[in-house]
């Protein structure tokens, strides 16, 4: 079902946990669909570099793997760089997901955006990539599609 890379990130997820007094925290997904992803960020205020990132995820194997790889991709990047990362990048980095699991990668992208938005709001920052962002749109498009 899942490739080795996905299984590796599921079995040994990187950056699991919480950050107390995080600079930004974002949670997306909902219980109905069975995936909730929460991301915590510590960001250097001057360089805008993401120094620390943690996640907590309720969801299936690909939700956990997507969270894990997304945090890896973002760690050490500047906020602007992190905001460029799309679900396609997450998918590519994971080496693909089954069709009905694509939405998990979307969730990961959105979780990052939500966490940065939280940071931006609290710290009065503005990012071009968040121009049209509204946390209410969060609910990821949930078409599980057809199984292959």
């Amino acid at each position, binding site marked *: 079902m899942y490739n080795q890379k996905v299984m590796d990130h599921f079995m040994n997820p990187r950056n*699991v946990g919480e950050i107390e007094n995080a600079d930004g925290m974002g949670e997306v997904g909902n*219980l109905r669909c069975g995936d909730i992803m*929460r991301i915590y960020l510590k960001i250097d205020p001057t360089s805008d570099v993401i120094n620390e990132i943690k996640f*907590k995820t*309720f969801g299936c194997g690909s*939700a956990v793997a997507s969270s894990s790889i997304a945090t890896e991709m973002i760690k050490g990047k500047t906020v602007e760089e992190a905001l460029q990362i799309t679900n396609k990048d997450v998918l590519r980095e994971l080496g693909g997901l089954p069709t009905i699991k694509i939405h998990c990668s979307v969730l990961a992208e959105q979780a990052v955006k939500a966490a940065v938005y939280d940071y931006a709001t609290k710290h009065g920052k503005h990012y071009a990539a968040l121009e049209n962002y509204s946390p209410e749109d969060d609910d990821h498009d949930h078409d599980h599609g057809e199984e292959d």
Partner: protein
Amino acid sequence: MKTIYMDYSATTPMKPEVIEVMTDAFKHHYGNASSIHHIGQEAKVLLQQAREQVAQLIGAEAREIFFTAGGTESDNWAIQIALETKPGKHIITTNVEHHAVLHPLEALEKKGYRVTYLPVDEYGMVTPEQVEEAIEEDTILISVMYINNEIGSINPVEQIAEVAAKHGILFHTDGVQALGNTPIDMSTNKISMMSMSSHKIYGPKGVGALYIRKGVRTVPLIHGGAQERKVRAGTENIPGILGFAKAAELAGASLDQHIEKLSRLRDKLRDGIMNNISDAKYNGHPVLRHPGNVNICFKYIEGESLLLLLDMKGICASSGSACTSGSLDPSHVLMNIGLTHEIAHGSLRLTLGDFTTEQDVDTVIEEIKPIVERLREMSPLTE
């Protein structure tokens, strides 16, 4: 790593005796039972013996057994029979049936039929009274599953059959999970039709049967040759049918011990898990239950993740979570017994069978706790 298979309700491994019968048939009984020559006639004799063996398991007559390609076809066929032999546009069923019943009925709704999906209680069961109240002028069929495949509850199908008979309505039951797991005696009940599947009782896949009580008018779902007394066309799958019959024979010979042993292991597994792990809910009826079914929801975690981690330990299980059902929602069974999404997503079904050992149960009890804890640690819902 040793595989611990606890997914017997999905499908069973085959018993060695069954494999033996089938490989023998592959080599020696390849005939077409419609052929006049000795190779065909030998096949025909074996076919009849097989029919008797399957009939015996459920106290039926051989001529009431019609072989099909599996439980799903049997379910579809039973509905088709009601449709084509009875005038009327209304069908009664429950909201926790297998998709093999629900989906053909949904297709009929698009064609103008009305279907009442009876709501079930917290155990997934309906009462004969509920069924009786739902009967309308033009009800042509009542279909209520014998044992639920997810949560294992056993419906009072004999009483429901009485109600149906009283009103002169066909009563079908999906007996796929019941066969070989509870005593069934067609000679003392009024069930009109019952679906069966071989691969749930240690027989081969791709074989099943529909019990059709004598006197019930029959029409084909699959039209063609004159096989199965002209109502189920297609060259008979003799080796498969012989395998099914062997499995039925074995099931009949040890039904009591099978139920006793499994029930004991099942309760041990349930207690081992429930006493060890908090925030867990045991689903299905406590007593009126499939002897091998354990179904538990663990709060704060999601079923597929649980399955994957169990699988890493060699433990094969299943879940009704949305992710494993391939749909948006957790299984309709879990939702319709009144669980919230939060709980339903964390469901785990462990189903035991004849090759399950005491040791297997102990191992699973031991392995499952750290896995649940690990997932809970990762979960944003655990506070």
